[in-house]
């Protein structure tokens, strides 16, 4: 029997082995065929049924009367979501799903209606322009009622001992006290999660301060570090904000930076002023705002004060209540407040 490579897939029984080259070529061919067939089948199976439904909810277990809210990573916003969810479920009969998401991801999810509403937004001009103005997939839901403010803070015990530290001009004097192994000789300013808006590097550069930002990388790490410093009564300087539940446990004093003027933070590289006071806002998915019925109306009406938000946030963070339990407790005590939010 000739040993040349057989052409078909069948080989005569008991024939001598074809040379090695023929075998690998055959194997290769088989692999190619298998791959091609599998790929073709997959594509066929997936596209045969026509265009896919867009804008479908991407979350397991959604039904008609389901509202999806984001749960941002900080507790204040979790308080908003918890109270809104509690009222939507118990007063208006909706089912509420919550989804943990980063802020920018939440904007994207909002625009494609994976999420129906974001209840606390600290200002994302880029996303706002893209989704609200250009694509019109997101609409504003009005103000939350809470005003947010970012700034530089030192602990109260340190400010009491050195009252002049609260002016930025004197920060250099204390740089040595703020220094750590990480900041290498300069004063350390503790930064938080990359999620949060910060111009600190520009501010330090433009004001010529002897400081160095050290990035904690997450809010949890930053809070842990602050608590640790406080427990040891050590001086520290940190990027921080209100409202924040930790402010009820730890007394922090803001350092005055050059006053904020409209537009002084327009160019991120040239910022040399304080952060503005930001009225926190709500945003709703455009379709949800239109067809969301009572739920959308309720979420538009939802406003409360910083103190009220803090009350719930503290129950969650300090007393370690679950968000649902905290919301239940607050709702029980504040009927007058939330009655006004319910759509007529």
């Amino acid at each position, binding site marked *: 029997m000739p040993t040349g490579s057989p052409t078909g897939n069948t080989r005569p029984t008991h024939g001598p082995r074809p040379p090695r080259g023929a075998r690998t070529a055959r194997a290769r061919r088989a692999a190619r065929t298998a791959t091609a067939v599998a790929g073709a089948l997959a594509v066929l199976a997936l596209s045969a049924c*026509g265009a896919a439904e867009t804008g479908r909810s991407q979350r*397991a277990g959604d039904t008609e009367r389901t509202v999806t809210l984001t749960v941002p990573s*900080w507790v204040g916003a979790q308080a908003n979501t918890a109270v809104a969810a509690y009222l939507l479920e118990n007063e208006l009969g909706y089912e509420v799903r919550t989804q943990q998401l980063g802020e920018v*991801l939440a904007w994207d999810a909002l625009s494609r209606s994976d999420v129906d509403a974001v209840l606390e937004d600290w200002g994302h001009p880029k996303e706002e322009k893209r989704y609200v103005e250009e694509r019109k997939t997101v609409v504003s839901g009005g103000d939350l009622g809470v005003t947010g403010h970012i700034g530089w803070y030192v602990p109260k015990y340190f400010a009491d001992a050195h009252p002049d530290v609260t002016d930025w001009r004197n920060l250099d004097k204390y740089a040595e006290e703020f220094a*750590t192994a990480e900041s290498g000789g300069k004063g350390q300013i503790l930064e938080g999660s990359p999620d949060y808006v910060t111009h600190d590097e520009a501010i330090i550069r433009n004001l010529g301060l002897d400081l160095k930002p050290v990035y904690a990388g997450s809010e949890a790490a930053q809070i842990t*570090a602050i608590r*640790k410093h406080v427990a*040891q009564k050590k001086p520290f300087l940190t990027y921080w904000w209100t409202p924040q539940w930790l402010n009820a446990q730890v007394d922090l004093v803001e350092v005055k930076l050059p006053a904020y003027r409209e537009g002084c933070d327009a160019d991120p590289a040239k910022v040399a002023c304080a952060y503005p006071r930001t009225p926190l806002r709500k945003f709703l998915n455009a379709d949800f705002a239109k067809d969301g019925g009572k739920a959308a109306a309720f979420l538009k009406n939802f406003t409360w004060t910083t103190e009220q938000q803090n009350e719930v946030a503290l129950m969650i963070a300090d007393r*370690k209540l679950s968000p649902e339990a905290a919301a239940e407790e607050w709702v029980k005590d504040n009927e007058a407040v939330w009655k006004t939010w319910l759509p007529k």
Partner: protein
Amino acid sequence: MTPTTTSKQGPGEKRPTAPRPTAPRRPANAAPGEAPTTPRPAPAAPTPTTTGAGATDDGSPTTVVPPRVPDDGSPTTVVRPRTPEGGGAPPAARGATAPAPSTAPPALRPGTPTPDGGTTAACTPAPAGTGTAAAGGRRAPWRRPRVLGGAASALVLGLAGALLLGGGGWPAGLTVDLSAPLDDANQWVLDNRDTHPLFLYFLLHLSNTAVDAVNAVYGVLAAMGWPGVLTAGVLLAWRAAGFDRRGARVACVAFGAFALCGLLGMWDATLLTLALMVVAVAVAALLGALIGLAAGLSDRVDRALRPVLDTMQVLPAFAYLLPFVLVFGTGTPAALFCTVIYAAPPMARLTALGLRSADPGVLEAAVSLGANGRQRLWTARLPLARRRMLLGLNQTIMMALSMVVIAALVGAGGLGEEVYSALSTVDVGKALAAGIPIVLIAVWLDRTTAAAGDRLGATAPRRGLLHGRSAWALAAGGTLAATLAGLAFGTTWPRGWTYDISTPVNRAQDWIVDHLSTGVPLVGGTQVWSDAFTVGLLNPLRDGLQWLPWWALLLLVAALARLVGTWLSALTATAALAATGVLGVWTKSLDTLSQVVAALAVTLVVGVLTGVACARLRWVERWLRPVLDTLQTMPQFVYLIPVVALFGVSRAAAITAAVVYALPAVVRITAQGVREVDPAALEAARSMGASTRQQLFQVQLPLARPALKLAVNQGVVLVLAVVVVGGLVGGGALGYDVVKGLSRGEMGTGVTAGLAIVCLGLVLDRITQPTARGPRP
């Protein structure tokens, strides 16, 4: 490393087969790889069929369980330092001269605990024949003086140049900005994803199908109620392990795992995670098997796929999470596809390896019986590869589980979300309560797949009610009964049956931090160490690297890589380092590099010492094993807060996280390597009157060199894998950039930093992994 295998297992064949002097009581356990495994009662040991000591060592797909993997990166480029796998059929297969019994594919040495299956298996042959391997190792250094001289002169040249020309970073002119095109791509996706046919006719189908699939599985699990799911988990484990006494142990583990998940108050979250895992693992295994099939049958496909698989595993998941979210949307689809990408490679590698290492004797027999290609594939090669494929499945599962928390970042829910939300209230106890079920699921699945693997080909199938199909029917029947019972009694986990561990855990943590952080007499305390470490080691290292001119550093890396490897590896290492400069993250890469090097040094010192202790003292190993298992499977997010509390927001904290994560693998590999040194050599040394110390330093450690090499390799991979986690606790640099890219939606930042991490992995791999020159022994 593997002296106990009998001759029928490929790689062992050249080794002396003398039985170990010490009774091989628990070799299976000793495997470094068996990550998430707590006391496993050496499952394979009692099998009566196989001969001698070899039997015990063999029964362990399990053992290779992964070190569960990092959130992100993993092995490969790195991991698979040119192992024989590269050259087509691994020596394991090639070397086997005698036709071996078909049921005994070359034993997978637990060599690597890596997620990367390929490595695991591939590395085997090297450490295999102790005698020959050692000889090979000794053969290499002949060139050393010359190479050393060259390296030294290059170093001197570099330093001189640095002094003459001054320090400096990467020249701005030589960078390529990837951010702009990436951001453009980002924008294009945003603008077109609702209208473009690519999305409408393909990608959206994928994401909708993903949602439907997870929904369906979750629906089924929820409908089964807790009694149904619990029973199903237990019976599945029992059936997979065989309905017998040994299987009952696995069943007990399964019961304990599920019951604890419920007790911790995490039942619902566990179900959601389980649903996502079932779908992700199914898709990843299928995809991996297909890729592995192609790579196993065709050398060209194999070569083409290898770098792809490497990148899939080393690129931090954080970096590609964002593009996936943009394309597929938040929630289930993005999480699912990222998990699949990360988890598929081990399946692909092990399938390919299994196909390639099929016993040539069997194949020849098949050919001579006239089987055509397809028949050979179905009747010989695939069945022979079954064991490795199962091992691949095992590793795929573990890797998928390690993505649970990351999946939660894009809104997949489940246990990951619980961990993540516990972080926002800085509640370590709650994070731990959500982390433990992840460990438990890992243990359950590990035991189950391991038990199934042990039974593969162990004995001839037995008949009877408790075997074969009727056993499956029995298991299904039991589940059905439990489900019905659940419907009667309630499907949600009873509220009263939960226990809150958060308060005691938090109290314990506070106590530890208060007492260990500073002011400990004599030793100082963790914060003091952290500062000293930063000032004394990290800062000089970082500043030194950043001070060196870029070309001097490239030269240095080239020289180092040449010293340990070939010209090709020197070229690769240099190119990889240069790539970080071209990407425009030179300074940050060097910062990260300094951290990785420091972490690696700590890991290796501590790991090797502990490993040697484990190998020599049984009780150390016994006590450490559960600890190591937990460290490997616990999501790093859980120990983020304690690490910061002890070490402050600092690079030292990031390094601690990395060490904690990488240590178990290094300890295991070292212990395994030292313990399995050829017993004959050890016996000889002993009979010549060598002291314990001499035995260790002159026999065991030199002979365990392949294992130590592997330990270094794993150290590199695992430390790099947690660079991103380090960014969350103050590591800054590339890790922070990757996180920032995801959370700010800046694709350019994240992907660039991710690629730079991959490049660093290449550099470190090439300068730490000696390459064999010339033909292998």
